């Protein structure tokens, strides 16, 4: 673990104390913006605009005005639904495809395995560019289709390698006996390999899920109809373009816009904050299986 010692010298003691202080301050710097968002979202928007400095308690008294505006907003609700749809369809297809690839590449004695692997790894380091990629999608008539956010992103080479490494570590003896009983590859994958790979599947769901949840760029390129926009694209209008028309507020006072921004952030980040504690134990696992391939 850490350095070995029997007793600490004076310098070492000072170091430990400074270390604790530094890490504490770092944690505060990470947490404060989140706290700021929460407090600002329940503040009075008009007073918030004029406020400067750290926020400790709601400015102008506690109010849920902003939340009422956000939660009754049809664009945000619709964006949410679109993102949930993309998550459900996307994760299912992505994990299934990645598992198929990972299974193939974890087999021994397949003649073209190495050539194909090289061709896939090559795509991690060299690419045609965003414009030819866009043209391919355009030729496949993916423009303005919801599936344009799923199909072009079905398999990540990196994730497939992580999954392959995990599949390859399953003892061959387990599969041999099934093979003798006449089991086909598809049976082995579904009945032996996948049930033994729950951790790596969780990691895949986490990685692909976060990817879909956060993506906005290709949605902004592919989609024309606003009713197809995923949540992040609506968020971009409200937060980045500062375009309150997405909020369709009929309220005259400009001020509420400020607290609405923060309420929107919170509403859009809450799901992540809620699943975060449950996902945490998979982090290290995920990063580590990923690292072995090096």
């Amino acid at each position, binding site marked *: 673990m850490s*350095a*070995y010692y029997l007793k600490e010298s004076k310098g070492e003691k000072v170091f430990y104390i400074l270390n604790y202080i530094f890490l504490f301050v770092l944690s505060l710097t990470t947490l404060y913006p989140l706290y700021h968002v929460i407090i600002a979202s329940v503040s009075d928007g008009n007073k918030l605009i004029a406020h400067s400095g750290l926020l400790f308690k709601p400015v102008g008294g506690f109010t849920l005005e902003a939340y009422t505006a956000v939660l009754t907003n049809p664009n945000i609700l619709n964006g949410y639904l679109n993102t949930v749809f993309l998550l459900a369809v996307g994760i299912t297809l992505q994990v299934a495809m990645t598992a198929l690839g990972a299974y193939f590449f974890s087999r021994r004695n397949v003649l073209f395995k190495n050539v194909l692997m090289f061709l896939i790894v090559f795509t991690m380091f060299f*690419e045609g560019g965003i414009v030819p990629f866009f043209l391919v999608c355009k030729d496949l008539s993916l423009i303005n289709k919801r599936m344009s956010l799923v199909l072009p992103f079905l398999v990540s080479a990196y994730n497939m390698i992580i999954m392959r490494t995990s599949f390859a570590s399953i003892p061959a003896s387990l599969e041999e006996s099934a093979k003798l009983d006449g089991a086909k590859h598809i049976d082995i994958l579904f009945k032996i390999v996948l049930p033994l790979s729950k951790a790596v599947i969780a990691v895949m769901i986490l990685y692909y899920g976060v990817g879909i949840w956060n993506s906005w760029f290709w949605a902004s390129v592919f989609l024309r109809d606003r009713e197809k926009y995923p949540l992040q694209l609506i968020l971009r209008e409200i937060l980045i373009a500062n375009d309150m028309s997405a909020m369709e507020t009929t309220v005259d006072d400009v001020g509420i816009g400020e607290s609405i921004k923060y309420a929107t952030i919170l509403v859009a980040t809450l799901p992540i904050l809620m699943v975060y504690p449950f996902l*945490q134990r998979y982090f290290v696992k995920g990063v580590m299986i990923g690292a072995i391939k090096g």
Partner: protein
Amino acid sequence: MNLKLVKKDFKLNKALYIMVLPVIAYFIIFKYGPMYGALIAFKNFSPGLGIMESPWIGFDHFMKFFENVYFWRVLKNTLLLSIYSILWGFPAPIILALLLNDVKNKKFKKSVQTITYLPHFISLVVIIGLLKSFAETNGLINDFLVLFNVERKPLLMQPEYFRTMYIASNIWQQIGWSSIIYLATLSNIDNNLYEAAYIDGANKWKQTIHVTLPGISSTIIILLILRIGRLLSIGYEKIILMYNPAIYETSDVISTYVYRMGLLNFNWSYSTAVGLFNSVLNFTLLIIANKLSRKYSETSLW
């Protein structure tokens, strides 16, 4: 590889090849398709004619880019942003991992980890949205800078602040997450090594230099090679969210330029040429970094 062997392999592994077919199809269509499509960099592409039929014009688009007034600007911005990102952003998680490794209170360590991993999962749109609010004239960052007698101003409208804002927010978001891999490697270092070093009279600092750092050096090198391979591929997504014409001077990089030329202005051939130039340069850098590392440290990607 003779034909007989191939035939036998196909017969034996037919089911496997069928299973992997959709995956291969995906890579052919969405990864190799664009590589083939990148041919339009050497053509005067018109969608009516298609890639094949569009007339060849050689390196004209590349020359046009090199002679463009913005060529040096985007190249310089890409390089500087990338180099500064490595300079500040690469060591940060290593330092955090080393510091966390020295925390003896398990609960405290776990809390710091949980807190610092969190921002990795917050979406870029939200992060930049927050950054924009905080960077406003009466925003939080200005409140802080005022303490050092810096005049209040809208920070994201100032070209000279862009790189700092970009890199600092990156570190804020990724420092914890990126430290995971180093922490995991650190926990694999044999305790006997520390013990032996201590008996030889090595103090804490010397143990760090002679035991800890060598223990994680191969991880550092691999990640550094990968990072250098991406030296010129600064992501466009974050910059597009952050920048505006007032700060193009420092924030416009090759990939954002490609995005504007190609996907906003529909200059397809030209922007593809610029993108290809970027890809080739990147790939070359990766190969050089890998070669150097293999020569000097015996650690390499391949």
